[in-house]
């Protein structure tokens, strides 16, 4: 007579769960080396992760792979000679760096720019913000698995770079500002091209918005991931969209207006949760706000000079240099000795796409800086990683890194 026996065979998921349990009790940790050459690290960031299964228990970012010693270099050249080096800080928004650096030295000099130069600089800074945020959003979508958005945003970014090329002569290494003014005035017809670009841009951003903002996959990968509380954001010195995503309304264009930002009407978007999704939403809204600022700047673009009136420190016109002895001497003195700065120290911070790009300048007078400290927003924003990453899974790392939107050229200086 046959007997029926019940044999308990667990399904595969239950077996896996048991194995994980045993591993957990053993407490075996895995060290994973992410980067320095990894698509999600946006450059050369290396993070040493300590993993318990899929969960990060410890993260140790390793920066400095792109260190070029910009601060040391600055101490060995004149103020004007350092402008091209600022292109290479945040190389996704070189125009904004040029503006920030020139404003810092002008603060030391005590210059007040003529209105036209201010307006053009505002246009430059906002154009740089649009290009940087377009890249930030596009690459972030790609990090989260949405390839198409990248193509949409890069098409628009190409148009920005065409505009920048016709304005400055270079697409990336712009070096457009001078201490006390700008390299050249707006070319003929440039404002009309900018108007055309601004007119069609909201529609294109709207397409990105439709693709991403309510996409279940994108929302699933970003919502409630990488939550930075308000207190943590301030304590870790975060600035820019990362700070505003955590609900702190700190925008230097509003809090400490420079370049006449107080005369433009724009809003500062802030997040409510502080997760990756909020940081993405803040960037998207800042794109629209930048368009608003630029439209106002074009509308009220004043006429007049683009240099301050300080013949001793501003290069004379080329035609005068070639025909007049005085101007020739003046040009030689300014180029060789550098501009004559007063003794003193200033700090100037500008609202750059990545956050507050600050320059602390310590001058002993004369044509070279005694000390030029660059407060790089990406460097400070990354310092939260050891606090932020533990508790997340490895796949979330990519989403969190992308949402912080850093540039290693600026972080490592």
């Amino acid at each position: 007579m046959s007997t029926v026996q019940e044999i308990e065979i667990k399904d595969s998921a239950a077996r896996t769960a048991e194995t994980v349990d045993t591993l957990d009790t053993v407490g075996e940790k895995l060290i994973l080396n992410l980067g320095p050459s990894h698509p999600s690290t946006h450059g050369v960031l290396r993070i040493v992760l300590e993993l318990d299964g899929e969960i990060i228990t410890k993260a140790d970012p390793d920066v400095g792979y792109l260190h070029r010693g910009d601060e040391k270099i600055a101490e060995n050249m004149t103020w004007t000679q350092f402008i091209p080096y600022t292109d290479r800080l945040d190389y996704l928004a070189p125009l904004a760096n040029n503006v920030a650096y020139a404003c810092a030295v002008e603060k030391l000099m005590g210059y007040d720019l003529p209105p036209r130069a201010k307006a053009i600089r505002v246009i430059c800074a906002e154009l740089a913000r649009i290009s940087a945020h377009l890249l930030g959003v596009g690459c972030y979508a790609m990090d989260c698995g949405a390839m198409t958005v990248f193509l949409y945003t890069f098409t628009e970014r190409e148009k920005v770079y065409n505009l920048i090329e016709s304005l400055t002569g270079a697409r990336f290494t712009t070096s457009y500002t001078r201490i006390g003014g700008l390299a050249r005035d707006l070319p003929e017809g440039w404002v009309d091209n900018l108007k055309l670009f601004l007119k069609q841009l909201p529609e294109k951003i709207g397409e990105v918005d439709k693709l991403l903002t309510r996409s279940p996959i994108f929302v699933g990968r970003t919502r409630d991931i990488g939550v930075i509380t308000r207190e943590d954001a301030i304590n870790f010195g975060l600035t820019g969209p990362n700070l505003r995503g955590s609900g702190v309304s700190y925008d230097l264009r509003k809090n400490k207006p420079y370049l006449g930002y107080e005369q433009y009407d724009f809003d500062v978007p802030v997040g409510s949760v502080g997760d990756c999704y909020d940081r993405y939403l803040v960037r998207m809204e800042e794109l629209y706000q930048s368009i608003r600022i630029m439209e106002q700047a074009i509308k009220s673009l004043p006429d007049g000079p683009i240099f301050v009136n300080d013949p001793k420190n501003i290069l004379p016109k080329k035609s005068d240099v070639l025909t007049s002895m005085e101007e020739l001497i003046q040009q030689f003195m300014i180029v060789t000795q550098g501009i004559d700065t007063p003794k003193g120290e200033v700090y100037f911070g500008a609202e750059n796409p990545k956050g507050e790009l600050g320059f602390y300048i310590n001058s002993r007078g004369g044509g070279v800086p005694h000390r030029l400290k660059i407060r790089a927003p990406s460097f400070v924003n990354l310092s939260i990683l050891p606090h932020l990453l533990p508790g997340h899974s490895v796949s979330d790392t990519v989403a969190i890194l992308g949402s912080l939107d850093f540039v290693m050229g600026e972080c490592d200086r």
Partner: protein
Amino acid sequence: MADLTSINNSFQARFSGKVKVQPLFREETTWLVEGSELLPVLTALKEEGFDLLIDLSTVDNFGDEPRFEIVYELYSTALNQNLRVKAVISEDVNSVPTVSSLWRTANWHEREAYDMMGIRFEGHPDLRRILMWEGYPYHPLKKDFPLEGKVTDMPDIAFSKPAPLEGGPFVTAPADRSGDREPKARPSAAV
């Protein structure tokens, strides 16, 4: 809400003579604090609402005594007010207390200051190099470190040539006499 003047008054009373207000330059307030009172002053400032440490930088006044300056750039989100706090450090002491327990952002700033200038931060949880690699022997932002770098143990693999800008010809140096300011080739700084 207290403003900067009342904060200044209360601090003058509390740290009598240890906090000196520098003359206003470009509308920026700078306090020069004695090294021994640095941590108490910064702790009290944090309590007064300076919750954002924007920047921490160091200055090397090579040839002067005390040699180093440390500069804290503070910001209060409640007052919308910047404040710079400075202290001087002599080369013999070469260390200041860490503020990474007050502002956690100071952790990386102090690591950078240590890496670049060699200033030590007492009580720092993890004082390692950050921009240069572990085991690098120098602190390259010191004024007596030459721009072209130093001779290495591996001249065939890691080498450096004089930097094109070192000492001129078209570089001025700050000086009182215009004759000393003139652009000319100069011997590179002492190695």
